[in-house]
């Protein structure tokens, strides 16, 4: 349990009012600077004195970063839009309800009232060895404490581990990948747009970060194209208790059907690897197939190919398989195996 330790260590605080000012500050202070959105991931690090930035750039005063607006038939969500505002947004509800369901399943009402969508997709892993300040791979060391014979790793990765076995905990991330969202990133030298799928990175690419963001980068908006508007959606999050808890595994699927057949589908899961995983092989295997138990079974089986559970997280393998089945056939139809 967290220890209350008096106020946080001192840092210099900036509350810029425009994106440009924020970018200048981030550019000036480089890796010394910590970007703070809602702060709900940040405070743990600062309060526990595990990360000690000398400068905090609080984005809360930047009006241009909040709000949902229409974009090319789809929508553009400012990075500082709170999860609650995403959930309550009428267009999100109507066209991209999977994102509302995903965001609504995160954390608690108060956290959603303050936590932002940008922060939710950029949050760090919850691996408690890492978060308690062990000098593990992710912290710049040479050991993964969650992958030792006595480690408690019930909530860790079952695939894609490269030295570090931490998982990405975001609930909105798989929904955004299923919707083929685009992440708009800006720094002093310009803007780039990255597919949601490629926004998240694993330890093989960079063991110290969860996203492509580097010091100086700001996620400014998330664009959701109209491609999947109004498709058949499925989101499910499995967790230990219905509030606060992070996903053990979650799944988001967007599907277009033609009669009985699956015309196209996008599917992503989180909580199984250091980055949300888009199940491309499963998607490919389903196109043109009837939406029935046989397809669902085969897809579930395919999804867990190559899974490598650790000592305490073997349960995630059937969990993932069954979530994939449910995403295709719905809860009632999925048979527990």
């Amino acid at each position, binding site marked *: 349990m967290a220890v209350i330790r008096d106020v946080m260590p001192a840092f210099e605080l900036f509350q810029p009012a425009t994106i440009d000012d924020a970018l200048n500050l981030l550019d000036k202070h480089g890796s010394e600077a910590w970007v703070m959105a809602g702060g709900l991931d940040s405070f743990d690090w600062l309060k526990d004195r595990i990360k000690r930035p000398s400068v905090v750039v609080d984005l809360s005063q930047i009006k241009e970063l909040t709000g949902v607006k229409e974009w090319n038939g789809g929508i553009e969500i400012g990075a500082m839009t709170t999860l609650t505002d995403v959930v309550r947004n009428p267009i999100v509800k109507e066209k991209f309800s999977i994102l509302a369901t995903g965001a609504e399943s995160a954390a608690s009402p108060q956290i959603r009232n303050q936590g932002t969508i940008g922060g939710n997709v950029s949050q760090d892993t919850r691996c408690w060895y890492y978060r308690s300040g*062990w*000098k593990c791979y992710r912290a*710049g*060391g*040479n*050991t*993964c*404490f969650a*992958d*030792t*014979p006595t480690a408690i790793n019930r909530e860790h990765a079952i695939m894609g*581990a*490269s*030295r570090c076995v931490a998982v990405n905990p975001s609930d909105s991330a798989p929904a955004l990948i299923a919707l083929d969202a685009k992440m708009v990133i800006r720094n002093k030298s310009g803007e780039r747009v990255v597919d949601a799928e490629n926004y998240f*990175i694993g330890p*093989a*690419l*960079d063991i110290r970060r969860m996203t492509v963001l580097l010091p100086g980068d700001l996620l400014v908006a998330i664009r959701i194209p109209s491609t999947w508007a109004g498709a058949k959606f499925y989101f499910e999050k499995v967790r230990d208790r219905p509030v606060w808890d992070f996903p053990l595994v979650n799944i988001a699927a967007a599907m277009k059907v033609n009669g009985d057949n699956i015309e196209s589908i996008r599917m992503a899961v989180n909580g199984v690897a250091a980055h949300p995983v888009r199940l491309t092989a499963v998607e490919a295997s389903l196109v043109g197939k009837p939406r029935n138990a046989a397809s669902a079974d085969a897809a579930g089986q395919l999804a867990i190919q190559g899974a*490598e559970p650790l000592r305490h997280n073997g349960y995630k393998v059937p969990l993932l398989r069954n979530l994939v089945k449910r995403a295709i056939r719905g809860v009632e139809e999925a048979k527990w195996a």
Partner: protein
Amino acid sequence: MGIIEFAKSPWGQDVPIHIFFYLIYVAVIAGLTFFIGHVIWLRYFAKKEEFADSTPPGEVAKLPAEIKRHSLPARLFHWVQAGAMLTLLFSAFLPKVGVRFEWLQWHWIAGVVLTVSIVFHIIHASFFMNFWSIWPDKIDIEDAGRRWKRSQGEKAPAPRRFGKYPMENKMYHLAIVLAGLSVTLTGFFMLFRIRTPLFTRNSYMFGDMTNGLMYTLHGLAGVGLIALIMIHVYFALRPEKLKISRSMVYGTIKREHYAEHHDPKRWVAEAE
């Protein structure tokens, strides 16, 4: 700043975890400084090479025009090793200076190639080549002393001609052996800490301290190799050394060069 980064182990012990990575830049700067120093030395201080002995011109004419220096297997080994070494250095250090890619797979595969090629080289050199030809011997050390004295303007007899390898080559080989064995041996044990198809992963063969020392040695030898490889490439490309460098491609050197620098009696011919 410092050389080694320390961390607390779960038991509260201070253990080394690896080197500080700014040492990469230190190594690159050391390499560059060496180039500059060497160029200045050559330009302003170096004396013309002189040898105490020589082969009479008549004898030289009897030699074949091209003298065999490196057999094909030896050359192959060299280039395989070079490829592996460069891959290892780039995959190790590019990510540390901000180039993102999935370096680990390149690194461990190149590491395995390097290890296998080194094992081959040790066997090849021990049993199929003249093993001693690459190690400094008594004459080399005496001659090094003579060269030093002469460069200081003191009186000393002229050094004798080299065996198969000049002293610099031998010293360089020695440094590469030390650094190379350090990285490959530590690298070999580090292979057990990651998932590869080679072994069952076992990251608990050693304690935190041993592991930490291994990472540190791996890192120190690794940055050392940056400087060493830079120096190697520099010498290989120097105009006066190209006569030797080409033998790593074609296998031979010219008889004139041979006769001037090498003592046929000390250069023991080897079987192919």
